[in-house]
């Protein structure tokens, strides 16, 4: 694969932006061209966040066109679906965490959260495929829920769909997480990687 369009989606505070930067850094280290278009505003948590990663020779703009995403990596199922609907291409993959982060709109009774089964059916109707893992539990198992983004990167690497080597990605992660948490993050990466086996 020479070009990859990846969206990393989640809720503010789940580390999707950092995850997208790490994928792009790994691509650059392997001599590829990379673009990341991120949507984040306030420092506040709880908002919908999506980061577009484009890797390949011919990429210019930082945002993926409609129906142009090969993979949507989701830290949260609803955020995965939100991006799948507009961006996932036919034959694309939704790789999602199963743990729900309920929006206030649902909590105050103004909306209904879609079931994982209905999300799966939606992805399939669009000609895509869904893989779901309980990333949140794996992150807790690794030592801290905050390693969720690295768990999901591990799973992403295990799909074999990244045009970069798993070793480079791991190296980049080690360089970009706080020093004291390197070991825990490596554990998180392995847990995510092995969950797809």
């Amino acid at each position, binding site marked *: 694969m020479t070009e990859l369009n990846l969206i990393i989606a989640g809720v503010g505070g789940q580390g999707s932006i950092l995850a997208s930067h790490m994928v*792009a850094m790994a691509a650059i280290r392997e001599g590829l061209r990379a673009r990341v*278009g991120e949507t984040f505003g*306030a420092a506040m948590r709880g*908002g919908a966040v999506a980061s577009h990663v484009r890797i390949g020779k011919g990429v210019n703009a930082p945002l993926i066109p409609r129906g142009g995403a090969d993979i949507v990596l989701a830290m949260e199922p609803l955020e995965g679906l*939100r991006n799948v*609907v507009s961006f996932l291409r036919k034959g694309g993959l939704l790789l999602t965490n199963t743990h729900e982060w309920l929006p206030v*709109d649902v909590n105050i009774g103004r909306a209904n959260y879609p079931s994982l089964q209905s999300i799966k059916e939606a992805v399939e109707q669009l000609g895509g495929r869904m893989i779901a893992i309980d990333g949140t539990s794996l992150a807790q198992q690794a030592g801290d829920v905050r390693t969720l983004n690295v768990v999901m990167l591990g799973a992403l690497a295990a799909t074999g769909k990244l045009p970069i080597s798993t070793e480079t990605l791991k190296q980049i992660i080690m*360089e*970009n997480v706080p020093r004291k948490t390197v070991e825990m993050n490596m554990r998180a990466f392995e847990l995510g990687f092995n969950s797809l086996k």
Partner: protein
Amino acid sequence: MSSTSEIIVEDSPGKRVLLMGNEAIARGAIEAGVRVAASYPGTPASEILETLAAAAPKLGFYAEWSVNEKVAFEVAAGAAITGVRSITSMKNAGLNWVMDMFMTLVYGGVRGGFLIAVADDPDAHYSSNEQDTRFAAHYAEIPCLEPSDAQEAKDMARYAFELSEQIELPVFLRSVTRISHASGDVELGKIEKRDRKPVFDKHWKMPWRWDVYGPPSAVEKHRWLHGQMPKIKKIVEGLPWNRLDLHEGQSVGVIASGIGASYALDAIKLLGLEGRVAFLKIGTPTPLPEKLVEKLLKSVTNVLVVEEGEPLVELLVKALAKDANPAVKIMGRFTGDMPPVGEINIDIVAKAISKLTGKELPSDPQLEKVREEVKKLVVPRSSTLCAGCPHLGTYWALKRALSKFGGKVPIVNGDIGCYEQGGYGIAGKEYKPSFSTESVHYKIEAPYETLDTNYIMGGGIGLMQGEFRAGYGDGPLVAVAGDSTFFHACMPAVANAVVNKAKGVFLVLDNSWTAMTGHQPDPVTGVTAMGEKTKTLCIEDVARALGVEFIRVSDSFDVRATQEAIEEALKSDKFAIVVSRRVCTLQAMRLKQYTRKKMFLEKDTCTGCRLCVSLGCPAITFNTEENKAGIDPIICVGCGICAQVCPVGAIKVGE
């Protein structure tokens, strides 16, 4: 570990790294040997100064968070007058605050290179409006550079200082969200030494150079400014960021400025039209490389202008076409061939080029139908305050205090900061327009429905005084503002309220930081941009000095005390200030000044009244089948506000 903050100061020309547009702009300034950097935070521009401030102590230059953009602009301009290189950066709205100095400084220009970097926000992702600040550069008669990606952002920022010194004028760099908050691979350049000595000469090359009132006159200085333009036009003609790609037999041309060029290139590729349309890439929307534009206009019959913001390039190209080739058709946002508002993207540009060339876009109508169908499953995620946010406590207290006024119609004037979410509404709820001729009372279901007006920083406290002067009597008048906003823009309005004897309650939500834009320090924080300890200003002291007589201070986490303070203020017959204070919880956790606690909800005690849900905390959930509230243990930080809200004592604070 080689984090970005370390790479930024590395003198390793040729190295390729991933940089965010804002980091790239900062790196450009660092390579150019910048000496003074000043800014006020604002998304999507904040990381420019954040990056510079982190680098400043390592490289020996100065960076500050100023109290507002106007002061920041003046700090940077003052440095440039003494001949050293300086940068000021801000978001779109920030430029409105500096216009007075900006429009006047250009009459004498600068001695050291001066870069004004402004990040616009098409689609108003993080802003009150979509304003296009390139017009301000045009208005001020200075050149505007507009990068198409992170590499150009760095290269242009670096070059801006050289250009500025060559033309003795500030240089404008216009970024947009998709440059500032996008990242790309950037090849680093060499870092120049910063050993220039600051000097001052009152009559440097022009009498009374730095005093517009000095002889000969402001008009003569305007004449000088105007006289710089031919030189600037000649320079931009040869810049590498203005490029014409023309081939035999092309009848359609695309002129694309800034990020528009990236979208256009990808759109041309998507359509399989590479090499089949003439392409003029613009890096200086004002002044335009006129010769290149004329050359293009003379060789094609149709031109599409692709730019982010208002149709500036389009109108300037139209003006040039009148003499160059009146027959050529020019299309863009002005003519309605591109959407007049909102952000553009690859899809929008591809559609416009498709229409113009007749080359069809690859499409799958069946799949589009399915997309529309499954979209119905997607529910909104309203933006919320964080779990444990002190503003949640303040808004609850305000709601309770206002409820004491029964069916009255208060006006709560909002302001800009995290607490502006008090007026975001609830995305999952439908709001209908009302055509009543009387004041209308609306129930506040969640804190996100608290604010009634909101426009710009410092706006609320002024509006409140106008409502009072109009004689509004159907309910109490309130204005809110945060600590950063208080110092940025509210002090003149407080003085105004005091001396002109206005009435109303000014509620200051003091969380010690400029939280919304990513936790920059402000005058109450006690730390500078470069990490030095400094004096802490106290809002109630300032208010007292400005003559405010009614002042109450409360802890935002103590909901009852805050409610009582607000109630008292509402009853007061004087202009009243209530400072609701508590450090931003996110920041307190980061600085290890906050200990997380666990909250417990006793299911058996919970009556399902949903009062806690209406607190608006994202950690509080509700299970409709059980008719019970719940607390998400991952999101909850244990601030204890909900325990104070629960009327039956079902929520308890643990350890």
